[in-house]
């Protein structure tokens, strides 16, 4: 590891920190911009009650002081209490929901990576044959479908017509469809990515050399070609996590999964501001960190990359 690389890594980490800070700041001031404040809701409350609530939650202080308090609280993982679910703190709701969503996401990502790489390599090896064309046509179709369309169709086919799987995420087997719905798009994307990079690699001179040396077919594909073809797939890891996290908002709504996505959507409809802020910051930080990891990994794995 040379100094150029170190300076790149440091720069990248600094950028990530600035981004996270920006997300927190945007979230904070966006919430403050909402007219009326969080307590001005359905019920008419007296001025004294409002004042008391404002004092309790520190909303009577100057805005900059509120901001610094919020920043320090977040550094201690304290996102404050939920306004609508009485007696619960935001961080508990987030961790509880993320336990479900995280499981869902990890399984979906695993499936997407495995199947995507397999399909992509198969398509590349059998270029322009029937199997390649089938794979390419179907992935093109899946990439064009928004997550809610995929989710809805799965619901229709498996729950409405065939009735073989439950439509509710709480029931046993209920997580199968949400996982498929989440995994389809990344699978299609990774397939296309792997195929094009595999095609690129298969034309390289070292593959011809290996072939000429008499390297066995499987060794050629797995060791020489696939290993190098997978480097671009690493760059997709960050965006994939982002897709799965935001896609889970929709999928959890469709299949009624008790995860973080559903908590987020209901916090929006309930206008539970601390929960909206907490979830946004949590999810955004996850995405930014994953992007950092995949970026750094990419630069470490591929020695040809130039550090600027």
């Amino acid at each position, binding site marked *: 590891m040379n100094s150029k690389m170190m300076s790149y890594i440091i720069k990248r980490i600094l950028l990530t920190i600035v981004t996270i800070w920006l997300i927190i700041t945007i979230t904070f001031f966006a919430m403050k911009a909402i007219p009326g404040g969080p307590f001005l809701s359905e019920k008419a409350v007296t001025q004294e009650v409002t004042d008391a609530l404002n004092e309790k939650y520190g909303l009577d202080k100057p805005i900059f002081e509120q901001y610094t308090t919020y920043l320090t609280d977040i550094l201690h993982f304290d996102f404050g209490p939920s306004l609508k679910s009485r007696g619960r703190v935001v961080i508990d709701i987030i961790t509880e929901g993320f336990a479900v969503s995280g499981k869902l996401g990890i399984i979906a990502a695993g499936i997407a990576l495995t199947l995507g790489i397999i399909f992509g390599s198969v398509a590349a090896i059998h270029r322009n044959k029937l199997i390649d064309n089938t794979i390419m046509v179907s992935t093109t179709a899946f990439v064009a479908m928004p997550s809610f369309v995929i989710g809805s169709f799965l619901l*229709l086919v498996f729950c409405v017509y065939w009735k073989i799987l439950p439509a509710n995420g709480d029931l046993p087997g209920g997580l199968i469809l949400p996982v498929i719905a989440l995994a389809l798009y990344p699978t299609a994307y990774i397939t296309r990515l792997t195929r094009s990079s595999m095609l690129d690699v298969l034309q390289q001179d070292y593959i011809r050399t290996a072939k000429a040396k008499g390297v066995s077919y499987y060794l050629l594909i797995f060791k020489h070609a696939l290993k190098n073809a997978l480097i671009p797939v690493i760059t997709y890891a960050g965006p994939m996590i982002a897709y799965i996290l935001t896609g889970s908002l929709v999928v959890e709504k469709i299949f009624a999964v008790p995860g973080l996505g559903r908590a987020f959507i209901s916090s929006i409809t309930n206008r539970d501001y601390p929960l909206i802020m907490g979830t946004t910051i949590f999810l955004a930080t996850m995405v930014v960190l994953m992007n950092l990891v995949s970026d750094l990994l990419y630069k470490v794995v591929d020695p040809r990359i130039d550090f600027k």
Partner: protein
Amino acid sequence: MSDKNLDKKVKLFNKPFSFHVNVDSFLPATEEEKKQQVLMRESVSFWKDGFRRLWRNKVAMTCVFVLATIIISVIIIPMVWPYDYDEQLGVVQGQAVDPSYSNLRPFEYGETELGIIEDGGSVFPHIFGTDAAGRDYFIRVIFGARVSLSVGFFASIIVLLIGTIYGSISGYVGGKTDLIMMRVVDIIYSLPDMLVIILLSVVLNQVFKDALANTIFASLGANMISIFIVFGLLYWVGMARLIRGQILSLKEQDYVLAARSIGASHGRIIKKHLLPNAISVIIISTALQIPSAIFTESFLSFLGLGVSAPMPSLGSLASAALAGVFSYAYRLVIPALFISFIVLSLNLLGDGLRDAFDPKMKA
């Protein structure tokens, strides 16, 4: 040119300060030499060349056809259709709501309509039936497609304008300005866009609700305005990066130096020399921006953050249909298919445009 002639020229070239006039250079051109000047084929302009390639691309032309059909129908059909997208057929002023109009299946009729048919009159059919509030579903889908398409189109225009201006200034000025401007882009680029969009639309919706009440934007809805603002704030960064990269390499070209040497202003150089040369990149990325904007809009509408009721968009139609999916599955399938077709053909058309207009792709 004869060999002798060439010899003389070479000799002259070797003696650059000689005042000897080469008489041969002033002879009238022979017929053979004149023939060489005749254009065998008219020179092909950039646009002609690109469109000829596009025309030959069958996939792209199919997409053009599909899109043209959809665009023409979303413009014309609302003008001639007998029902309105927000017209509740069971509701007549001063009478009780007629429930027979709600949730009609395709080609079914409400009670009063059946009466008219029995009397020998004709009623325009409800091709896709009606929704839970008794509104003709076909016109709602068409109107939803219109909303989704226009969101995609206008959002891309916003992205194009901001991205082009920002990127070209950053690339052209260079130096510290470029560094700072690109750091800003880096940070915005790394924000998770969907989450920020959701957050901002929640907030802007609240902020704009009252401010918009009596203006011309009221019919558009606060959510729509916030979608456009969000696009203006976030999505231009990709375009800006692309344009900057183009400008960086283009500004080193000789014709820029030539323009500068005759005193062209910076603005003129950017407008007349740099941007026209980057036009292929601009077209391609704008074309690919439209489907992503449609995606985003439908995603937000599906979550209930998109266009405000009663205005439909394909996303909000799908979202509303989800509640009754066990009885009325087609109501979910229709907008879903529509949106997939639109996005798919826009994507493929974008690929076709890239093949046709990208100078690097020319074999």
